[in-house]
C-alpha cells in the first residue's frame, strides 16, 4: 500500500459525545458546545490550550466559523471537512495528521450534524447544478443499499428467507446493544417480528433495516503519543488511518455485482498493513462499522475480513458478531441505535472504542479489549468513500 501510516505517533486523551436523538431543544451550536465541553473535561485541557480544530459536518454549517463562532474561539485554526457519511472520521483523520506532522501539540477533532431541523425523512443531498440525469439524484440511500440484498442472495444461492433473517438479526442485535447505551437514540430492544413486519422503505428494507435520523455531536482530543500519559493513564493510541475513495466504476461496469464495496476492501487492507495486523479476526477485540442498512453490515463483515465470502449471513445468524460473539460488532448499538448525524457518526464510533479500551463501557464492557476497528462509509454500492481506523490501548 501507498500509506506510510502513523502507527503510535498520536493518541486520543479525551473524548466527548452528546446523547444522539431528536434533539428538538438543542441547536447545532448547543450540540457543539456540549461535545467540545465534555471532551475538554475528559482530557483535562483548557479551551485556550487547544492549538487547532478540525470540524466535520455535511450540512449543518460551512467553514471553520461553524465552530469558532459558538465556541468563541479566538483566532485559532479551524478547518471544516466533508466527506459524505465518513465526514466525522475525516475530521479525526486530518486532526491526527496535524499532530503527527509536528505542527500542533493538541488538536481537537469535532463532528456535528443537526438533521432533525429539516422536516424531511432520511439524509438530504446538496448537489451542484446538474443536467438532472444522475440516478443518485432521485434514488434514495435505502434504495441504493437495498440493491445488495437480491444481488447477494443470487450470487451465493442464499435462500431469501434466510437472508431476511440475517438482516433481521443485524437490526435485532444492534438494538439489543443500543438498549444498554444511555447516549443512543433508541434504547429499546426490538422484537424480530416487529423488525420483519415493519413498513417497507425500499426493496425488502423495512423501517428497522434503516438507521435512524438524529442529531448529535462528538469530539476527540489528540496529542503526541509520547505526551499521552501526561493527560491520562489510559490513552488510546492510533494504529491506522485509511481512506479510499472509489472511481465509481460499479455503476458503469457490468462486472460489478453489488455484493461488495471494493473501497472497503482497499481501506481495510491499508489499515491492517499500517497497524501490522495479519489476522483481523483474532487480533481485533471489537469493531464499530457503518450499519447504515442491515445488508450493509452483512457485506461489511466480508469486506473487512471478519467472515469468508458468501458466509457472513451465516455467521451473523450464528451470533458471531453479537455482544458475546467471537467478534462483537457495533457494541454501542451502531447507526441502528444512534441514528446517523453524518458529521458525528465516525467520532461516535471512536467514542465507543475509547470507552471499551478504557474499560468504561458499563454493561456493554467487553473483557480485556486491546484493539478496536472503526469503519465509516459514505456514498453507495458502486461508488463510495470508505474509512477504516484501528486504535489500541497499548503503545507498540
Amino acid at each position: 500500500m501507498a500509506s506510510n501510516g502513523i502507527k503510535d505517533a498520536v493518541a486520543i486523551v479525551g473524548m466527548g459525545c452528546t446523547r444522539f436523538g431528536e434533539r428538538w431543544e438543542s441547536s447545532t451550536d448547543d450540540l457543539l458546545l456540549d461535545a467540545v465541553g465534555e471532551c475538554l473535561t475528559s482530557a483535562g485541557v483548557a479551551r485556550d490550550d487547544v492549538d487547532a480544530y478540525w470540524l466535520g459536518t455535511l450540512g449543518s454549517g460551512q467553514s471553520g466559523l461553524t465552530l469558532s463562532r459558538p465556541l468563541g474561539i479566538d483566532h485559532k485554526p479551524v478547518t471544516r471537512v466533508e466527506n459524505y457519511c465518513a465526514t466525522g472520521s475525516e475530521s479525526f483523520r486530518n486532526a491526527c495528521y496535524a499532530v503527527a506532522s509536528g505542527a500542533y501539540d493538541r488538536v481537537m477533532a469535532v463532528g456535528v450534524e443537526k438533521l432533525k431541523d429539516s422536516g424531511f425523512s432520511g439524509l438530504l443531498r446538496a448537489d451542484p447544478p446538474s443536467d438532472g440525469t444522475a440516478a443518485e439524484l432521485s434514488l434514495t440511500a435505502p434504495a441504493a443499499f437495498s440493491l445488495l440484498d437480491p444481488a447477494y442472495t443470487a450470487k451465493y444461492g442464499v435462500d431469501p428467507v434466510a437472508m431476511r433473517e440475517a438482516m433481521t438479526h443485524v437490526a435485532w442485535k444492534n438494538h439489543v446493544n443500543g438498549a444498554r447505551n444511555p447516549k443512543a437514540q433508541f434504547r429499546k430492544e426490538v422484537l424480530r417480528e416487529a423488525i420483519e413486519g415493519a413498513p417497507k422503505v425500499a426493496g425488502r428494507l423495512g423501517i428497522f433495516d434503516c438507521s435512524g435520523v438524529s442529531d448529535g455531536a462528538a469530539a476527540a482530543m489528540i496529542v503526541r503519543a509520547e505526551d499521552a500519559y501526561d493527560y491520562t493513564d489510559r490513552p488510546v493510541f492510533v494504529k491506522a488511518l485509511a481512506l479510499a475513495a472509489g472511481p465509481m466504476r460499479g455503476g458503469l461496469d457490468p462486472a460489478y455485482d453489488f455484493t461488495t464495496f471494493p473501497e472497503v476492501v482497499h481501506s481495510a487492507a491499508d489499515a491492517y498493513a499500517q497497524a501490522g495486523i495479519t489476522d483481523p479476526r483474532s487480533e481485533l477485540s471489537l469493531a464499530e462499522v457503518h450499519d447504515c442498512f442491515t445488508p450493509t453490515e452483512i457485506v461489511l463483515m466480508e469486506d473487512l475480513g471478519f467472515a469468508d465470502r458468501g458466509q457472513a449471513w451465516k455467521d451473523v445468524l450464528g451470533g458471531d458478531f453479537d455482544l458475546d460473539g467471537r467478534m462483537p460488532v457495533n457494541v454501542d448499538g451502531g447507526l441502528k441505535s444512534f441514528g446517523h448525524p453524518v458529521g458525528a457518526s465516525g467520532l461516535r464510533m471512536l467514542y465507543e472504542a475509547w470507552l471499551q479500551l478504557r474499560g468504561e463501557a458499563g454493561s456493554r464492557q467487553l473483557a480485556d479489549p486491546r484493539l478496536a476497528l472503526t469503519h465509516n462509509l459514505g456514498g453507495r454500492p458502486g461508488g463510495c468513500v470508505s474509512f477504516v481506523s484501528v486504535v489500541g490501548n497499548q503503545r507498540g
Partner: protein
Amino acid sequence: MSTGIGILGYGAYLPSYRLGSDSGVRGRRVVASFDEDATTMAVEAALGLADGDVRSLWWASSTPPYLDKTNAAAAHAALRLPATVPAADLIGTARSTFAAIRAALGDGGLVLAADVRVGKPGSLDEKAGGDGAAALLLGEGDAIADVLGVASETVEVLDRWRDPQRTTGEQWEERFGFEQYADRVRAVAARLLDGAGLTEADHVVVTSGNAGITKRAGVLVKGALSSTSSPIGFSGAADPLLALAAVLDVAGPGESVLVLSAVDGCDGLLLRTTDLLATRRSVRPVASQLDGGRAVPYPTYLSWRGLLERELPRRPEPDRPAGPPSSRAGAWKFGFAGSRCTECGFLHLPPLRVCRACSAVDAMEPASAADLHGTVATFTVDRLAHSPSPPVVDVVVDFAGGGRTTLEVADADADAMAVGAEVGLAFRRLFTAGAVHNYFWKAVVR
C-alpha cells in the same frame, strides 16, 4: 401533386395506461403516464423514422410542454438529428398538424403530432378523448404512399376553445359545430376527389373534436372499403395522423386514402398507397397498441394531471436541471450517447474522459446508443423517493454490447420486475421542477 415528395414512413404511439370503470369511463380511455407529454410521445411515434434522410422536423400539439421554448428541439435532440435540420413547433389544433404536412410537402420532413388531452373530471373530454402521438415521414424516393392532394376550408366558429392558462377546455353544443362542419367536410372531400379524378376513396377517415362529425363519419363521406374515425377518441393534434396510421396499418397496395379533419373548417389529405406499403408498415400497429395497456386507478390518474393533490413522501423536491450542464451533456441527456474507450473498448454511460477500465485519458469516441437494450442486473422499489407517482422502480441495466447504467423504470409494475428482465429505452420526463421538464431516458420492459 407532382412535388416528388411522398410518404416514406409513418408511426404511432399509444401510451400504455387505460382509464377504467372506476372513473365512470365505459371502455378504455387511453391516457399518458405522469412522465409522458406531447414531446416524449412524439419521439416514441417517430421510432425508426429518423434514421433516414430527414430534411425538417415539424411538431404539432395543442398541449405544448413549453412556451417560449421550441418543443421540437427536444424531439430533434432525442431523435439525434443533425443540427442542420430545422425544427419548429406548430401549436394549436389538428389544423397545425395539417400545416406541418404542408410544410413537409415542400422539401420533405418529419411531421410529429402529439397530445395529452385533459378533460374536467366527469366531462366528455375525459371520457371520450385520448392521449397519443403519430408521425409521418415525407420525402423523395420510394414512397409507401403518393400524395394526390391537400385541401382546406377555413371557418371561424366557436365550437371548441380553451383558456391558455387552463388544461381543460370548453365546447359549444355539439349540433351547432356539426352543422358548421358538415358542408366543409363534404366540400373538401369533393375537391380532393375531383382533383384526383376519383368518384370515391377506398378508405375515408374523418376526425374532429366535434363528436357529431365523428359519429356520422361514414355517412358524411363514405369509403369504398372502409370509413373510420379516430381509433382512440379525440386526440387533438394527433387525431388525423393516428387515424391515418390505423388505415395504413391495414390498407392494401394501390388504394386511395382520404383523411379529413374537421377543426375550425376542414383539412383534407388524399393519398394512394404503393406496393411498398406492405413491406414498410409500422412495427407497432395501432390496433395492437390499443389492445394492450393496463388500468390506472382513477385517483392516480387525477393526481398525474394535477386535478388531485396527493400527500408526497416527506422528501425535498428535486432541483431543476441547470441549463449549462444540460447543454454540455446534451448528447447524453437527450440522445443517450456515451463514450467508448478507443484503447480497450469499454463503454461509458454517461460519457467520461478517463476510462474506468484501463485509465486511458481522453481516448474516447462518442458511442451512439440508438437502439440500446439490455438486461436488469439488479433492481429496487424506492418508496421514499420523491416522485409524481411513487413508488419509483429503479434498475441497474447491463446493455447488450457492454455498458451499464442505473435508470428509473417507465410504466413500472413493481411486482413484475425481476433480475434478468429485458428492457429497452424510452424518452420520458423524470420530473418537472421550476417549470423545467427534466427529460431523460428510462428503462422500459418491451
